[in-house]
């Protein structure tokens, strides 16, 4: 990140946060997006880029220090997979609280409320969210529909920053892949390339058991469940609310 010009006025502090879990396919969107932003642009020292992972309350301090907060995240809006959505200001906590499928350990809504309780809520809030396509792929990476939203999401963030007088300088050359806010082990290319094949590491369980003749996966799970439900007492088998 660049040096603050000696003639600059005291500037608003900006936090650009990527949150989500890299290990659960599209849940990794937020962290990948902020990492890419860092490779493409440089900012003055009043702007912080952070890999928030699935941290909850531990992020409160960073949020409190910011006047402008931008969050990249995979969020469930019940939209088609890969749809990008921009949410601003008061609407942000509502959207972040709405997510039911997220694997985050805490609601980011709570983090914002705690910052507010300390009288330190960021003045300006922007959430750049993308609807995940796939979460149930343990050890998997971003799906193409989500991955291709990284650059558009960055543009949305930059436009928002510009409207608040915060400028980003495009780097003459994109930083090399191994420059990361996370750690080198988690580099997207390495994370994807070193993933063992599905034959080697069965993605739904343990191959030694699956291939063991003593145990067989249910051939038709749904049929089996229907059978179970059929034998239930009448009052219990109705569909619930």
């Amino acid at each position: 990140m660049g040096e603050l010009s000696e003639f600059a006025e005291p500037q608003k502090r900006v936090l650009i946060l990527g949150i989500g879990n890299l290990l659960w396919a599209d849940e990794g969107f937020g962290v990948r997006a902020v990492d890419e932003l860092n490779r493409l642009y440089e900012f003055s020292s009043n702007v912080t880029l952070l890999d928030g992972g699935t941290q909850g309350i531990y992020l409160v301090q960073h949020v409190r220090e910011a006047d402008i907060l931008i969050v990249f995240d995979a969020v469930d809006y019940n939209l088609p997979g890969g749809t990008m959505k921009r949410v601003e200001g008061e609407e942000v906590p509502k959207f972040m609280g709405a997510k039911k499928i997220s694997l985050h350990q805490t609601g980011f809504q709570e983090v914002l409320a705690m910052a507010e309780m300390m009288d330190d809520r960021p003045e300006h809030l922007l959430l750049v969210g993308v609807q995940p396509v796939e979460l149930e792929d343990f050890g998997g990476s971003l799906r193409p529909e989500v991955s291709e939203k990284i650059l558009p999401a960055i543009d949305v963030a930059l436009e928002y920053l510009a409207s608040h007088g915060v400028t980003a300088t495009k780097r003459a050359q994109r930083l090399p892949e191994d420059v990361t806010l996370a750690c080198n082990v988690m580099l997207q290319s390495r994370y994807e390339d070193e993933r063992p094949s599905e034959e080697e590491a069965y993605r739904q369980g343990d191959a030694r058991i699956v291939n063991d003749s003593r145990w067989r996966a249910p051939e038709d799970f749904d049929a089996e469940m229907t059978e179970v439900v059929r034998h239930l007492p009448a009052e219990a088998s109705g569909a619930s609310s």
Partner: protein
Amino acid sequence: MSVVTTPNGFNLDTSGQRVVVDPVTRIEGHMRCEVNIDENNVIRNAVSTGTMWRGLEVILKGRDPRDAWAFVQRICGVCTGTHALTSVRAVEDALNINIPENANSIRNIMQLSLQVHDHLVHFYHLHALDWVNPVNALKADPKATSALQQKISPKNPRSSPGYFRDVQARIRKFIESGQLGPFKNGYWSNPAYKLPPEADLMAVTHYLEALDFQKDIMTVRTIFGGKDTHPNWLVGGVPCAINMDGVMAAGAPINMERLNLVKSVTDKTIDFIEQVYIPDLLAIASFYKDWMYGGGLASKNLLSYGDIPDRANDYSAENLLMPRGAIINGKLDEVHPVDLRNPDEVQEFVPHSWYAYPDEAKGLHPWDGVTEPNYKLGPNFKGTKTNIQELDEGAKYSWIKAPRWRGHAMEVGPLARYVIGYAQGNKEYVEQVDYVLKALDVPLEAMFSTLGRTAARGLEAKWAAHKQKYFLDKLIANIKAGDTATANSESFDPSTWPAEVKGVGFTEAPRGALGHWIRIKDTRIDNYQCVVPTTWNGSPRDSQGNIGAYEASLLDTKVERPEEPVEILRTLHSFDPCLACSTHVMSEDGEELAEVKVR
């Protein structure tokens, strides 16, 4: 229905009304809890279930063992560093790698700092609101609050009436703004809350102070881990170089200036715990001394792997400052040794878990563990397969396996560590426990409760802060003696590894015993099994019908208002679930009674 007595001595009666709390918390996946209450609103049966598969073992298979720490620290939002430490220890054990003394001291400082941080956040931000009523705090007289503060903690400088008046005004503004945030969905009119308004105001004030204090504590892990939020770790040592003549620079080595910063944060941490946390703990507990529920397994079976090796590379019980051992059937005069390599000790069972084993009557040691999902609901479940109203605990009902130590269901965590240390006659532990028992004027048996669990966590935070200072002094002395080594890279090159090896790494995470068992084949991870604290405490029943720690702890608790199960949350929270999330309480017919907040 008749009463069933479990082999581990608990009576279960499923005839009463069923109350469902789902999800309880998202720790290690989603958790759900169901209880049956009798006509007097007393819990007579409890069912705890993890409703989401973690899949960690599958993610790691085939990866480079030296990378495993980076994956495991992404699994959970709170125990990041503890998982990473456990992982590098497992790999070092497998490959026979010794780490330098400095690396051991730095790792201990990071682990202790995480203990303190986690306990502090747990007490004030996840658990306090089970005992403290922020709405009631608005009625407090700031002057009387000031007097109370000065009485319970004379050294605490922030105790003026004006200070409490300001905080009260801030809380009023926040609550009156209509968006209660973390205070939302509380049962603020429930008679289960016993504190006078002044104690409520004092505690809520410290809720805010603790939130603020986090930023100091975090600097310790940032300095040694090199990166905020997700510190770096290294098989063979720690990734930070020491250069006492070095100047500060980005990603710079450890120098005296930085060590002095750690020192000053450590001193401030000790002050905060001694002047704020411990006095609050005792003050709040003094109003709840007649609420002695929640013991469960605590008076019977307790387990700790131990942690914080004094000297590097010696993981024997004698060298661990945090005690190791097992207590069975409440026999405090006999603490059993624990061997994580022994195939007959730690075993995981799955007859009530959504996994398949070739022979489910038998348990598997984690080195031979398998993780094959098998989602099947029992014939007595109610609802539909995608919307379960009531689980059938007679069949498979949880994504959590049932770990057992020599066949026994065990409680792990700060209370287990404190009772084991006390039973072993560990001077530091005995002094601390006796102090708290005397201050509250209660017998040792009072420790076997929800409050005892909460108290042990506070005592441990104090112990850990002092030990952090001990290891910082040790580190500085060692550096001054000329030893600046932080990593041993001798066996880092995979071409030097044997074709097949196995190892085990262990720590005591803030919420309990944590073990990673690894098998490495042809330089890649062949099998990786984590047995996490939540697996122990949140365990479902096993093949014998023994219930787990969460389940046992809820039994016989009186719930004032079943639709506001603050008592259930109190006890489950005392085990330290990770973080906040929304919870729905459903009545028997699936109708939503109330939305509760698990804090």
